[in-house]
């Protein structure tokens, strides 16, 4: 059952939230030993929430558009009284004293949080192998990675443990795992969804977004969490565009530009490119005006990203110092600096350390202009090139990831190869624009392939409209 169907049945009293939650808990308890989508399954919490939803229905109150729908939360989204680990040892034992804004919005919509999902530590990675608690496996092929960093969320949806999940996307961390697991994943416009309660990786790039089995479910979830929040200064004021508004409107007359630089980017596998061309042709066949478009600065996105994101991360992750919460490692007689070092050495994994060091270096006196400053200029160029493209096109099209899900362990030895996974997704984060990955056929290995629909800032309505149609046209 889709999330829409579950909510409709619960609201109508045709089924109970308790039964829905029980069914999903059972499935997750049975299957997650192998997949490891969850860091924690919140059975008691979910059962209590389901009872509240059912009571509302019984009392004639509407629990909301997501009534009784189980949702899996990436484990970097704060939940009051429930461990929020970011899949890191450094947050050992920490329980947030507050709920993230999105968690409150989910509750207001009648959704039931069913568990916290595994991820690359602090969302740094593209395979969910950088987790202190071990990797998540791709439900489509358990020898393969689910992508990352929201690999647990994508896997939970793909495995049917939860119809909906929230992830966070800093450089592709929702869209790439969605593509690799054969589900839908969207990164909204920067500022559309409140970041309050999202543990920061790179603040100017992070956005929370939906993962779901189909485009319409993803749209309903996004609409439930988007909108202004006084607790997040970067959250946009004004009415949020409705993702679910025009899902059935088709693509007749919509101008679709295939981004040449991304389709031809380094490392793209032939089957992925061929699925992209196929999707473009299908859209043209359905009445869209499809053409190629050049976004020249897009190819520099990866380099700019790997300066900006680590720079912000080096500052955001400084607070994990052992003084106030989480892990503390100290030798008797040591001073506070030694405690910092011992704690951070033991608490952070290699990838986090690598990026903190990169970022610290990029911000250092004498290097700022050459690295961070220059990367910000590239960001401006990318926005300019996208703006130019959107003068002629309503949406853009590209691959989501360069290939299908890769075998566990196959890229861990070479960080740069791993980083290349995000070449198509990063430009949207740098520009602050929305983008969505939709499953479209399979690779030569029989694993799912995603195509990415990109839209200008606050272009969610048309983006979901096109994505929904691609889904209909998919083989």
């Amino acid at each position: 059952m889709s999330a829409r169907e579950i909510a409709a049945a619960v609201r109508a009293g045709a089924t109970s939230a308790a039964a829905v939650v029980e069914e999903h808990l059972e499935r997750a308890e049975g299957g997650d030993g192998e997949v490891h989508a969850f860091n924690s399954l919140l059975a008691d919490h979910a059962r209590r929430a389901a009872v509240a939803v059912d009571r509302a229905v019984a009392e004639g109150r509407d629990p909301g558009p997501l009534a009784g729908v189980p949702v899996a939360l990436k484990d970097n989204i704060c939940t009051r009284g429930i461990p929020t680990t970011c899949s890191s040892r450094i947050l050992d034992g920490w329980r947030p004293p507050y709920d993230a804004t999105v968690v409150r919005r989910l509750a207001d919509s009648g959704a039931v949080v069913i568990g916290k999902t595994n991820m690359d530590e602090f969302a740094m990675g593209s395979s969910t192998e950088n987790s202190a608690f071990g990797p998540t496996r791709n439900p489509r092929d358990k020898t393969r990675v689910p992508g990352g960093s929201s690999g647990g969320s994508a896997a939970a949806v793909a495995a049917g443990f939860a119809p909906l999940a929230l992830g966070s996307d800093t450089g592709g961390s929702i869209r790439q795992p969605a593509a690799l697991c054969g589900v839908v994943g969207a990164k909204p416009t920067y500022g559309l969804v409140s970041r309050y309660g999202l543990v920061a990786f790179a603040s100017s790039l992070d956005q929370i977004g939906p993962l779901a089995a189909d485009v319409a479910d993803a749209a309903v979830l996004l609409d439930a969490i988007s909108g202004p929040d006084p607790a997040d200064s970067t959250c946009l004021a004004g009415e949020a565009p409705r993702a679910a508004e025009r899902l059935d409107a088709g693509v007749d007359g919509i101008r679709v530009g295939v981004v040449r630089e991304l389709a031809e980017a380094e490392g793209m596998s032939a089957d992925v490119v061929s699925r992209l061309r196929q999707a473009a042709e299908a859209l043209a066949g359905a009445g869209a005006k499809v053409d190629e478009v050049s976004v020249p600065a897009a190819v520099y996105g990866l380099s700019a990203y790997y300066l900006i994101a680590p720079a912000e991360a080096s500052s955001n992750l400084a607070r994990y110092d052992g003084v106030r919460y989480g892990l503390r490692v100290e030798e008797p007689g040591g001073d506070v600096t030694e405690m910092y070092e011992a704690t951070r050495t033991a608490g952070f994994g290699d990838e986090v350390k690598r990026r903190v060091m990169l970022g610290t270096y990029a911000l250092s006196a004498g290097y700022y202009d050459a690295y961070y400053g220059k990367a910000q200029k590239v960001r401006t160029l990318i926005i300019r090139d996208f703006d130019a493209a959107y003068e002629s096109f309503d949406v853009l099209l590209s691959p989501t990831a360069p290939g299908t899900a890769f075998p566990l362990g196959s890229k861990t030895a070479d960080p740069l190869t791993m980083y290349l996974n995000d070449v198509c997704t990063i430009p949207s984060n740098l520009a602050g624009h929305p983008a969505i990955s939709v499953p479209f056929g399979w690779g030569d290995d029989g694993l799912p392939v995603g195509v990415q629909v990109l839209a200008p800032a606050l272009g969610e309505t048309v983006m979901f409209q096109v994505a929904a149609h691609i889904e209909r046209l998919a083989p």
Partner: protein
Amino acid sequence: MTEVRTGWETVVGLEVHAELSTATKLFCGCRNVFGEEPNTNVCPVCLGLPGSLPVLNRMAVELAMRIGTALHCRVQPSQFHRKNYFYPDMPKDYQISQYDVPINADGWLELPGGRRVGIVRAHLEEDTGKTTHVGGGGRIHEASHSLVDYNRAGVPLVEIVSAPDMRSAEEAKAYVDELRAILVATGVSDGKMEEGSLRVDANVSVRPAGSDQLGTRCEIKNMNSLRSLGRAVEYEASRQIRLIGEGRTVIQETRHWDEGAGKTGSMRSKEEAYDYRYFPEPDLVPLAPPAEWLGRVAASLPRLPAERRAALAALSGSSPDSDAVVTVVRLGLDRLVEAAPPEHAALALRRTANEVASDTEAAARLDARAFARLVALEAGGKLTVAQARTVLKELMRRGGDPEEIAAELGFEALDAGSLEKVVDEVVAAHPAEWERYAAGEDKLAGFFVGLVKKATGGSADLGEASALLRSRRGG
């Protein structure tokens, strides 16, 4: 006021941190108060908990604009930066501050003597928590352990950075004294150095008298009173002159003032100085107060001390930097001098500065009209100087009417009633002029006083007549 010590000139620039008198902290809703139980006035934001985000306090911005305007600064669109360094009392291990675009830049402050000290900038930033080192002498390297209170974390500060324009310890003290008076007068801060709501660091260097090159400076910290600021600057200048005299060089470093020992000691050298890795705070949007808001702030500023000194000097015929004027303005007793008959303003100034100022609590309660009548009595020769002082003392002790007090004390009885009658007659006979005078045309006071003089054949106390006229108009 250049201080030349055997051919050397002292150069001082000051960095003053003032806590703003807001109801709440800079980025959260916690109360901005002093002296609570440790760690009770905190929340996820000021504790820097993972996922929390800052939201800028509007009142803090307004107070910052107020001090910027009072210091003749350019109040401009600005941005927040992160200043990164590890310290246990900083919850995020970075401080949200302002860097290359502060809210206030390029102003000046005029010392009572008329010399202007340049203000480089006055920017907004958050305070840190407070660390207490337990064991040893209260310094971190001697401590067995440290306690941190985060109540102060996130309290709004303005950091006011002067140009190196002061030439002596005395001038440095005068600058802080004046700045404190402005902060208090504008309601920006309570300016209490002892409670730490005003903190001063001094950059001190020396150079041969007549040189226009700046010498190597040392930054002196830990002065907690004006007196210790003066002592620290004196000591440091002497130390540097002695070093140079011995053929050694001054090393740029941060030095700690030890109040007990009366010495400065090295904290860290330039080589050990932190690289703060400033970068724009991505969690806050740029700050651009509308011109209309700034206009309202400027219009609402009270008269500043320099202006009040000038007014008082003009009124009393003394110099703006005379001790009497400076004292009266610093204590906010201008109203007493201004209420006295203008021709007796000099006497009123002397009485205020010499007698009234010695008891600030009673001074605050002293009724200006009663004080004015007393001054008139003395000026009119109805009381001797000694009698006037005695009556004033009583007036300050218990309030009341100076003539009654004088009568009680057996000082010469006075016929105040008959003077009042004459004034009434004169006023009644010239209703048109009275109306103009009552509407604020002050020069007509002379007209009425002249009539009183004529009517009484020159026997009336004209100051008293003046005061009666004013009190009739005021009532």
